[in-house]
């Protein structure tokens, strides 16, 4: 009798399906949503100050000829506190860092900055996440490199770890060329 190998095909397909499920189950893919705004201009916005001792933030501030880091943060966000030493190091490295505080109360921002340090030259209050949605950011913290004309050049998702500092300074320098 001829062996019908094709009989095994459904079983093989099923085994393949199980393998796929197992792989995805134990090694889930990264589900970070990257901004599609890299290479595009910042949208127009004008945010009121998020803390009493720093001015607010508007688009024109980021089109003043000098590349800057735009940090999206919030006082209620734990990784934002974790990246504070790295932001301080970036500031020492010559980076001008401006910030957008997402859904935050002025007193909470002030307490956060008093506790973890204030590396920001400007902080805008984004109470309705409008700027966050406008630049394609899907969480806090995120850090964008903006060139002197207000074009988004790079997006860093998640907290800045010590190994990211040199890379971000390089991206900032590249944006200035």
């Amino acid at each position, binding site marked *: 009798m001829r062996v019908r190998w094709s009989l095994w095909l459904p079983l093989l397909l099923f085994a393949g399906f199980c393998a796929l499920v197992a792989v995805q189950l134990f090694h889930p893919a990264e*589900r970070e*949503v*990257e*901004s*599609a*705004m890299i290479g595009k201009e910042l949208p127009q916005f004008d945010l009121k100050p998020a803390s009493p001792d720093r001015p607010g933030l508007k688009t024109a501030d980021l089109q003043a000829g000098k590349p800057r880091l735009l940090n999206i943060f*919030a006082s*209620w*966000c*734990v990784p934002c506190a974790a990246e504070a030493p790295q932001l301080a190091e970036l500031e020492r490295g010559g980076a001008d860092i401006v910030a957008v505080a*997402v*859904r*935050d*109360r002025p007193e*909470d921002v002030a307490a956060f900055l008093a506790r973890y340090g204030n590396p920001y030259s400007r902080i805008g209050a984004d*109470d*309705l*996440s*409008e700027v*966050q*949605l*406008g*630049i*394609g950011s*899907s*969480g806090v913290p995120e850090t964008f490199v903006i060139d002197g004309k207000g074009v988004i050049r790079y997006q860093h998702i998640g907290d800045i770890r010590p190994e990211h500092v040199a890379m971000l300074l390089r991206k900032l320098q590249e944006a200035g060329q």
Partner: protein
Amino acid sequence: MRRFLAMWRAFLAALVLSFCVPAMAQDAMPPAPYAYRQLDDPAQEAKARALMETLRCLKCQGQSIADSDAPMAGDMRHQVRTRIAAGEDPEAIRAWLIERYGDYVSYKPELGASTWPLFALPLVLLIGAGFVFSRRFRRGRQ
């Protein structure tokens, strides 16, 4: 008995704590004005609702923004409702979000360079099945 009570208390404390920890990752701001408030015009609200059900919450990616209680989803609903109230077309709002987050933000598959097989494959399978059936029926008649 006393030991049991101590354990029970520790268990309860752990249970309560486990509810507190996620809450700390939320902000203290009130929700956006149109996060939980419907539009006054039922026709506009229906349009907004239909759109919100097909937009992905970026914080909680298995849910639509209509289903999610994440503050960011609330802000996205506010964005959708205020734009619809201002007379914007739902598909224009979807396009605005796709321009910022890519196709991933939309649950409605768009025909594009990477998605055309989704649309082509059912047609190919249907034609293939039709072909196989027609051959079998012809053979059966002979």
